[in-house]
Structures are given as C-alpha cells and as structure tokens.
C-alpha cells in the first residue's frame, strides 16, 4: 500500500532510530530503503518475540525503536509483548502487516482475518487499521498522528497496515 520512500519518510519524520523487524512480502519491499537510511538502524531478528524485547532494550537505553512485523508474528510474540508493554509499561509503537487483507482471495479462509483484530482488541492497545489504499498520503498522516498521540499519552500503539493488492 505504501512505497518504501513513503515509509522511510514517515519514520524519519517520527524520529525513529531503529526498526526491529522480520520482513514479509509487503514489509520486505521497504527493506532496502530502510537499510540505506542513515538515520535509522535496521535490526533484523529471527522470531517476532525477539522484536519486542530488543525494542524494549532500545527504549530503556534511550533510543526510539519501531517494531515492524506481520500479524502472524503478533500471534507468535504474545508473551514478549505482554512483558514489555504491560509488565514494564513501555510505550512501544509497532507497524503490523495485516496479511492478505486487501486481496483476500490470495489466501482464501486465511485465519489471520479472524484473529488479528480481536487479539489487538484483547491487548487493549491503541490500534488503528489503515486500509484505504487509494489515500496513502492521508493514511500516512493518520499513522503519524496516532504515533504522536501514543507518545504523548505514554501508551503502546499499533498501526495495522492492510497488505495485498488493492
């Protein structure tokens, strides 16, 4: 939905220092530009649960990390997320790719569509679905506003970004 330059521009605007991530077929298209960005460090992890813990360490060390994973990784990383966001109340922000949302025929019956939103709701985070592929500029502005709102209120947040071809 977003181009790599758009994403890098957004993260620079929001002063993120590190992107802690595992790519999927959408997020992975941003990887080269993220790695080429001088102001953002790219931290690839092996499993999504790691991402929240690495981001937690970065945060308490004074950095401003973004967790960027697919919704399947959200499912995997529950205990790590719970610990960082709720035991220690670290206001981490994440971009989570919503697999197949824009073209649900790609993976018919994909259970990601059944569980992603209820799980985010269960965690009680500030989460917003961005699925308006024809309005990317407005969507990017909305993500920025959400992120800043989370920072001001000191709460964790998730930008749930619809994936697939619109």
């Amino acid at each position, binding site marked *: 939905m977003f181009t790599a330059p758009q994403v890098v521009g957004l993260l620079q605007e929001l002063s993120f220092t590190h992107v802690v991530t595992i790519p999927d077929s959408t997020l992975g298209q941003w990887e080269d530009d993220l790695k080429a960005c001088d102001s953002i460090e790219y*931290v690839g992890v*092996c499993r999504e649960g790691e991402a929240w813990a690495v981001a937690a*360490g970065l945060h308490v*060390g004074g950095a401003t990390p973004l967790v960027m994973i697919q919704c399947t990784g959200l499912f995997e990383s529950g205990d790590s997320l719970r610990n960082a966001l709720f035991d220690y109340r670290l206001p981490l922000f994440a971009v989570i790719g919503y697999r197949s949302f824009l073209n649900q025929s790609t993976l018919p019956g994909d259970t990601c569509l059944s569980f992603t939103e209820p799980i985010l709701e269960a965690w009680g985070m500030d989460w917003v679905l961005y699925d308006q592929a024809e309005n990317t500029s407005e969507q990017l502005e909305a993500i920025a506003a959400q992120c800043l709102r989370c920072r001001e209120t000191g709460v964790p947040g998730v930008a749930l970004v619809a994936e697939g071809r619109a």
Partner: protein
Amino acid sequence: MSQSQAGMPLVESLNVLREIRGDDEVVLTVMGTAREWMALGEPHPLDWIYVPSSMGQAPSLGLGMALAQPDKQVIVCNGDGCMLMNLGSLVTITNQAVSNYTLIIFDNGVYEITGGQPTPATSGTAALVDHPALARAAGFQQIFVFEDLDAWRESARDVIDAPGPTFVHLAIAPIPGAVGPRSPGPAPARAQDFADAMQA
C-alpha cells in the same frame, strides 16, 4: 555442555561477576541468576533485574540495551533453559556484531525453579547439547568455557573486556528446592529508574 549435578556454585559464580563489574556496566539477570544477584547486596543503578520476565527474551533485551548505548558494556546472565527458548537470538546478536555485549549462560541442565526437571538438552546427568558449539555455529567468535570457579574468577575481567559479542558458558550446580525470584518492586518504576541511569 549441560550437566545436572557437577559444576560451580551459582552464588559464588555470580559473586565473581559482582566483584569485577565496572561501575558503568549493565548487568541483566533473570530467573535463578536474578534471585541470587539480588541476595548478594545492594542493587546497582545499572542492574536490570528481569523479574517479571518473558522467559527466553533476556539476550534480546540486552541486545537492545547494547545497541542503544554502545559505550556501555552489557552483561546478560541467562540460564540454559532460558537460552533454549530463544536460540535464534544467538544469530540476531552476532548479526548485529555488538562489541559491547557479553552473554553468560549459567548451565545447570535443569529448570531449577519449577522443581529441577531436566531441560531437553539433558538426559539424567548427561549433556545432550553442546551450548558453546551452538554459539559458535551461530557466529560467535569469542567463546569462553569454564567448569571451575577459580578459573572463572581468574579470567572473568578479561572475558568481559574481550571485544564482543562474547559467549560464556559456566557449568553450574543446580540448587535443589530453589524458588523463583520475586520482583524487587514495581516493574514500571524500576524500568524508568534504569532508563534514567542508562541515559545519565
């Protein structure tokens, strides 16, 4: 080398670290190491007592700290059971090539605080898994193995000073009946205090 009976005493092995620890060095402890580290004396502002924890995530948490503060040495005191939960983190750590990072595995071969059940890396008293070899295969260049307390004491400072990422394997005797650690206070407030010390 996991082992469930032999090995150096946990408390004394941690005390070695306490004696040589520099004032600007972060020490992250979890599970049994957290329990005994707290009992050894007054907390240091750069102690991260990882209680409550997400079991397995201590190496990753410490990696984030090391990346954020490259001038501070970060020492992660992990258990073998915890390590087995997050072996991929070994690769993540070496991929980031953090020179200010030391991962110490206190290997007693068992899940101590749940009653001493052997980990899948142990059968009876026999080690089934070579933890240092795992680290080597994951890309660690600096690997140190100690089965004797005196040898650990003699080398500990040099080990910490070695350019990392560094992997240290200590053979530790399990403590029968040991209980889990208790949080020394509200976790959010401790996290804020630690962050203040890290960024001072």
